[in-house]
């Protein structure tokens, strides 16, 4: 186990930020921590890093209890904070060099690592820029570079793509996958389910400091009753027809807001086929028809009764 958290409780006064949180992360995983704003993701990360005092629980990293003085553990952790944390007075190169130097004593090795990181994050053109002159996306990349230059075995990224344009975001996600393929274990927090779904091999969904579900995305989706969502575009359908549509096997709910009929079905075969047949038989005029598998948002919705993003 790379990280093992057991019964972690963290209170801020009356607020319970983490409520008996337990999870483990295996080597080579990209572990996603998915939850809405304020659900406790950053708090959990800061506890793992021994930055925050917590009220209860045990945390092990690389099989050893984590403490502020566990330098041999810290040496192998790379962290990309939610808030950009770089020196405004240092250039891109100097910033990366500084943080890398806190981990790597050997000058030549350090230099090589810094160059590799600059290349990896695509910051070469900007190496002599001060952070103030970087765009939001580039700044995020610098923030990442400072956290990973020393080639850590465990990389923790706390919402590294917040306020980043789609192009930079894809680059960042791609980079994370590459780091993982080179052997790094990754903890990735986000409140964007698409991202998490895209790159994480295992996901824990948290809400109000509680783990509400953990597993691969397939496992998570299998946990809920919703099988698929079928959407039919139609300008002319009667209430009576909708009612009969709902009678079909496996159909859980039918909602119509002109021109879209949204049909939710539970798991089962031939759901789409049945719906199509019904529409043909009833001569309902239709445009597009498509079927979607449930998203993590649906998982969240079904378990907590609210949307992941509000």
């Amino acid at each position: 186990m790379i990280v093992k958290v057991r019964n972690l409780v963290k209170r801020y006064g009356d607020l319970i930020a983490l409520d008996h949180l337990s999870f483990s992360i295996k080597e080579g995983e990209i572990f996603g921590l998915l939850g809405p704003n304020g659900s406790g993701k950053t708090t959990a990360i800061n506890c793992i890093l021994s930055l925050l005092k917590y009220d209860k629980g045990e945390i092990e990293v690389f099989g050893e209890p984590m403490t502020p003085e566990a330098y041999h553990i810290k040496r192998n952790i790379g962290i990309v904070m939610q808030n950009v944390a770089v020196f405004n007075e240092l250039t891109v190169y100097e910033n990366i060099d500084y943080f890398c130097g806190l981990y790597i004593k050997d000058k030549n090795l350090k230099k090589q690592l810094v160059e590799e990181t600059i290349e990896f994050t695509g910051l070469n053109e900007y190496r002599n820029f001060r952070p103030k002159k970087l765009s939001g996306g580039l700044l995020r990349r610098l923030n990442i570079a400072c956290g990973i230059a020393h080639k850590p075995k465990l990389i923790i990224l706390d919402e590294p793509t917040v306020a980043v344009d789609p192009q930079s975001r894809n680059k960042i996600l791609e980079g994370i996958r590459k780091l993982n393929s080179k052997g790094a274990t990754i903890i990735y927090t986000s409140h964007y389910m698409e991202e998490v779904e895209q790159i994480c091999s295992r996901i824990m969904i948290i809400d109000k400091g509680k783990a509400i579900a953990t597993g691969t995305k397939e496992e998570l989706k299998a946990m809920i009753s919703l099988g698929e969502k079928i959407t039919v575009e139609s300008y002319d359908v009667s209430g009576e027809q909708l009612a009969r549509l709902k009678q079909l096997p496996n159909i859980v709910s039918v909602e119509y807001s002109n021109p879209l009929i949204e049909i939710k079905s539970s798991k089962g075969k031939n759901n789409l086929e049945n719906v199509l047949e019904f529409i043909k038989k009833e001569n309902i005029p239709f445009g597009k028809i498509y079927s979607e598998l449930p998203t993590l948002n649906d998982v969240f919705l079904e378990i907590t009764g609210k949307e992941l993003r509000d």
Partner: protein
Amino acid sequence: MFAHIFMNRLRCLLRDKETIFWTFAFPLALSLFFYLALSNIGKGETFQEIDIAVVNDSRYQEDLYFKTALEEASKGEDRLFDLTLATEEEAGKLLENGSIKGYIKAGDQIELVVKESGMYQSIIKSFLDNYSQTFKAVETVLRNDPKKYQEVMESLKDRKNYVKEVPTAGGKPDIVINYFYTLIAMACMYGSFFGMRETSDIQADISPLAARINIAPVHKLKAFLSSICASMLIHLVVMLALLGFIRYVLNIDFGPRTGYVLLTMVIGSITGVFFGAFVSALVKKSEGIKVAVLIGVSMLGSFLAGMMYIDIKYLISMNVPFLSWINPVNLLTDAFYSLYYLDDLSRYALNIGVLSGFATLFCVLTYLILRRRKYAGL
């Protein structure tokens, strides 16, 4: 690791324009301003004789020793006072309309009546105190030894004694100097801006940057020490430059004890830096608020030490002496001042002692706060 952090820190601080402005450019500009504004005051070190009156009653006429002493002090080229004999009523009027700084009533207990406190008033007072203590106490001895009598008389009327109660170290009385001393003292305290940055960048509950350093495999206090050494170095260089500018460009004299002057500056700078470090660790508010606190405290301290208006210093030390002992700017000013004027180093030592006490206190308190490695909240 020390070199890595230290060098990068130097680089950061030297590029931090705001801090460099407050610690260097601002005091430098202010010193130039003082120079231009004050160059007429106290020119040529002419000592202004102090206008006083004495109530010319029987008690005065009968107290021969006091009468002689006062007359001696109001005689000749280098006299201390311009003395007027008057009735109490007249003296009161003179004081009221500002023609005299104060008037004296002889008697068993010699009385001094003044309207306000200031340097002149405190000189008159020290003269009287001196008379009462030295002269009266050895009255009997003097009666039998006319030679001693003359000696005591001479020292009693020596004006230099009264700028600061004890004999001088070769310096000439000059009010202007005090303004520059306060200014240097203030600049020492502005080292607090460096200290502030140091704690902000090591306390994870203050800045995300600090959080990042806390996560690195580096001993927190070692990182802090490496870093604050860089701050200290820059601050000392800045102070040396300021001191050099004031001494050699503006030609303000610090007296012959260069070593002690430098020592004072070093201790002042350490106090300043750790004061800032402590305030920043204690006040967990935005940087703007911290800067406001630091500037506010340094400015208030400088004001109370007489930077804007010299009489404030005397007013405070006479009426609220406690305040002058807890004001680092005043301690520094006074240390420079005693170095310049006094042969005896005891007053200087006292100032520096108290100041070092403060430096140690700030240092220890900062350590106690920084020592924690886990935070209750970020």
